[in-house]
């Protein structure tokens, strides 16, 4: 049996379904992200695990114990909030030691744990500071240490980095992963940032409108999305209208040109819509002729140099396609208005 089991959980707020039939099994030590746009139910689900919301139906079982109706202070799960939620009237050390203090832990043990936690988050010199004297990143580290100090069975992080600037976000997410792996703590991470979810998680749950769209490893989610929502929400996706789709052979016509696509997963997982479209990621394209690859003609409409990546918009028939190329020093960039030949492998595209 899994360490944390969320079974058939639904939550309805005054007639509005926030979460519907959520099922997830999480193994001990696993890092799982709930990824989705605002209002998709990811935070509500997290709050049901924390005990701040009661499910309308379903149950949450942690380490063999049904905690569905247990109050938050009896669950021993740690939570990190988006807004840090540090107690402003307490120093960093007092904040970290708060959970142990209310558990009536001996003072010496509290001091030892607080020192350990301060070392873990590299804020040893800030123990006596108040939250207002720390930067956003430092405050979030303290919030993380405070949640970990009680040695929780599960760590819950509710968009912990969204209030921070981009550089700090990247640093801190590496820090979170390092600490999570060091402590081997089972973690649920809520985010709407796909890059965060992809870079941190063992598994990702993509959610939309209260439903689980797909559960899988970052690679599965990115490379083998099972729904159009997942495909378009995680990473960029080109959707090109096609005709004469033959699923058995894996062929279709794109702007009158024959194109092959990956049809191995087509029948099992993906449904083809009434207006079939060929799905392909921008980074799968290359310029020029190539054998054993799909080759189509187009015209360059936009060229954006982004440093490591060059992003182009190429018109292929009626569709405007995003093409990402890795920058090379010797690369000669096409110009706007150039007619170009682009190629892409059959295994990198599928029909939706």
């Amino acid at each position, binding site marked *: 049996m899994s360490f944390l089991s969320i079974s058939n959980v639904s939550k309805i707020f005054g007639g509005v379904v926030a979460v519907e039939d959520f099922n997830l099994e999480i193994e001990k030590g696993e890092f799982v992200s709930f990824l989705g746009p605002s209002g998709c139910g990811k935070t509500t689900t997290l709050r049901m695990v924390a005990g701040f919301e009661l499910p309308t139906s379903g149950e949450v079982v942690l380490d063999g114990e049904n905690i569905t109706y247990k109050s938050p*202070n009896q669950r021993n799960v740690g939570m990190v909030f988006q*807004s840090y939620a540090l*107690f402003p009237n307490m120093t960093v050390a007092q904040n970290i030691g708060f959970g142990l203090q209310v558990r009536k832990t001996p003072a010496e043990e509290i001091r030892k744990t607080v020192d350990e936690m301060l070392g873990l988050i590299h804020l040893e010199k800030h123990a006596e500071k108040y939250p207002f004297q720390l930067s956003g990143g430092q405050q979030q580290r303290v919030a993380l240490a405070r949640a970990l100090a009680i040695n929780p069975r599960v760590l819950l992080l509710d968009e912990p980095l969204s209030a921070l600037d981009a550089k700090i976000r990247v640093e801190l997410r590496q820090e979170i992963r390092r600490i999570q792996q060091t402590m081997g703590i089972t973690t649920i991470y809520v985010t709407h940032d796909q890059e965060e979810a992809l870079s941190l998680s063992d598994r990702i749950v993509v959610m939309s409108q209260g439903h689980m769209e797909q559960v899988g490893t970052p690679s599965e989610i990115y490379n083998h999305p099972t729904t159009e929502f997942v495909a378009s929400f995680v990473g960029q996706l080109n959707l090109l209208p096609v005709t004469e789709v033959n699923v058995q052979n894996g062929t279709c016509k794109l702007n009158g040109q024959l194109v092959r696509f990956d049809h191995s997963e087509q029948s099992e997982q993906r449904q083809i819509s009434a207006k079939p479209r060929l799905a392909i990621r921008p980074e799968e394209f290359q310029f020029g002729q190539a054998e054993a690859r799909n080759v189509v003609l187009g015209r360059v409409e936009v060229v954006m140099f982004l440093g490591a990546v060059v992003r182009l918009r190429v018109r292929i028939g009626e569709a405007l396609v995003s093409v990402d190329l890795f920058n090379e020093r010797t690369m000669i960039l096409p110009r706007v208005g150039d007619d170009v030949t682009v190629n892409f492998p059959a295994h990198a595209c599928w029909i939706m």
Partner: protein
Amino acid sequence: MSSNSFSKPVDTKRDAPKARPALSGWRDWLGVAPFFLFVFLFIVLPSFRLLIGSFQDVDGNFTLKNFADLMDPSILGAYWVTIRISLATAFGGGLLGFLMAYAVTVGGLPRWVRSALLTFSGVASNFAGVPLAFAFITTLGRVGMVTVFLKLIGVDLYDKGFSLYSFWGLSLTYMYFQFPLMVLTITPALDGLRREWREAAENLGATPFEYWVKVALPILTPSILGTMILLFGNAFGAYATALSLTGGFINLITILIGSQIKGDVLHNVGLGYALAFGMVVVMGVMMTLYYFLRRRSERWLKQ
């Protein structure tokens, strides 16, 4: 030779708009001129007059007798009663107001209850003097509506020792404007308590009681202290309500000042000024105490 790819830092000082000087134009000062004018005319000048007058006898000669007279047992008694009634109504009104504000903010009562309470508080906190005294006399006086009704159902308030014209009767009347003032001033502070603090505390294992004792109340302490001093001052300076209700039966310091300044029997303006100066001293002590308590309780606030 390739050119240096690192450009010189932009001279932001040159490009940035000039900062406004600390003392900007006279127009800005004109906006606050009425405030300073009021402070000067109705606080500074009267205080100055009060200070001078308290050192003068009825003929305008210098004397210390007015201050010596403050040691008279009846005057000391008046100070003590006024302080007691101010403390009682500050704490009583403060507690009642806090609980009511809590109920409509953190407590999760319907939104309309909050609106109703705040509207009532806005009116009631300014309802004092003769109308308030009259309202209480007609409800809780000897033949007041509530008194008579309670008598009909077998509860005789006055037989049981209650009197509207006593210390506690006057305190009850003061509570009518004290607790709404507490509601008005503490509600924004309670609104400022972030839900995440309570959730974080609960998540870390704290009971609701522990959250209030260790987190919420320490955060609210500066606001509570500030409001309590406001309530104390509000009651300490009350005059018309007490005079209308008790007719001087309770020896409050404000009533004493009134009778010294405009009274026919006890007319001694100098003593009246000295009594008022004594009130300033009492408020000064309270403010100093408040200042130190507040500094202690808000050391975690951004300076």
